């Protein structure tokens, strides 16, 4: 019985989660990883992707996002601790190399298959990485259908 209770709680938590990715609190992650864009949920990539990204912040998608070593290590540990699980799916490319973009993962492609190419190119959206353009509560980790509004 004692063992059943946590298992039930876990199941409830997992189902209730649907498509909210709770953003665990971490001061350095919030400050450093939400200054140029909203914070992407750590759960959306596996550990190897985060490790690769955090290993070269000076060349971060064409931007210099370098930080001091102490913070880099702290944020890396945080990302690894909360990295993706089963739901995250495959986050490697055809050669088996870890992908750095959530927007290139199989799960992302599957969830957005119905959106026409022209939509992504609208001036109000500009990039698929601009989650908050359509997911109005993305900054809080909320991606469920209820909070989707595609701008004109």
């Amino acid at each position: 019985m004692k063992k059943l209770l946590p298992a039930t709680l876990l199941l409830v938590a997992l189902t209730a989660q649907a498509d909210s990715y709770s953003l665990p609190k971490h001061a350095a992650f919030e400050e450093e990883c939400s200054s140029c864009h909203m914070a992407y949920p750590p759960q959306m990539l596996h550990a190897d992707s985060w490790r690769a990204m955090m290993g070269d912040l000076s060349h971060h998608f064409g931007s210099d996002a370098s930080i001091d070593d102490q913070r880099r290590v702290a944020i890396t540990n945080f990302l690894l601790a909360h990295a993706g699980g089963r739901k995250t799916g495959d986050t490697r490319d055809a050669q088996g190399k870890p992908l750095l973009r959530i927007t290139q993962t199989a799960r992302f492609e599957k969830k957005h298959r119905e959106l026409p190419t022209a939509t992504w190119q609208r001036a109000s959206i500009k990039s698929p990485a601009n989650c908050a353009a359509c997911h109005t509560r993305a900054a809080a980790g909320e991606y469920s259908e209820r909070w989707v509004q595609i701008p004109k």
Partner: protein
Amino acid sequence: MRYLLIIAATLFAATASAETPRDFLTRFEKEAGAAASAQRGARFFTSKQGGEWSCSSCHTDKPTQAGRHAKTEKAITPLAPAANAERFTDAAKVDKWFRRNCNDTLNRVCSAQEKADVMAWLLSLR
């Protein structure tokens, strides 16, 4: 006595880390060994120097107003101290962003003279 020392040390640390925008102008001018020019700063800030971006691409050419990240669209609060009291109050933050943003716009770090000029211009904005 021991306590007094600790209190004194804490007070000192607190005052030493809180900086004002003027302190940065002084520091960069000293490093450059020359006076700053707000006019030069304005030109530097608003013109592209071979790259895809100028400072204005994200901070606008009137940095008393809010900007927008040229690639991600994220809103950026005003850079000019007159419009945003949080700006230029933390040396680690100021140094970090000068390093990153200069690399992104110029493909190199900014010289002390360039930073002094930018500071002089930002401080002149009302």
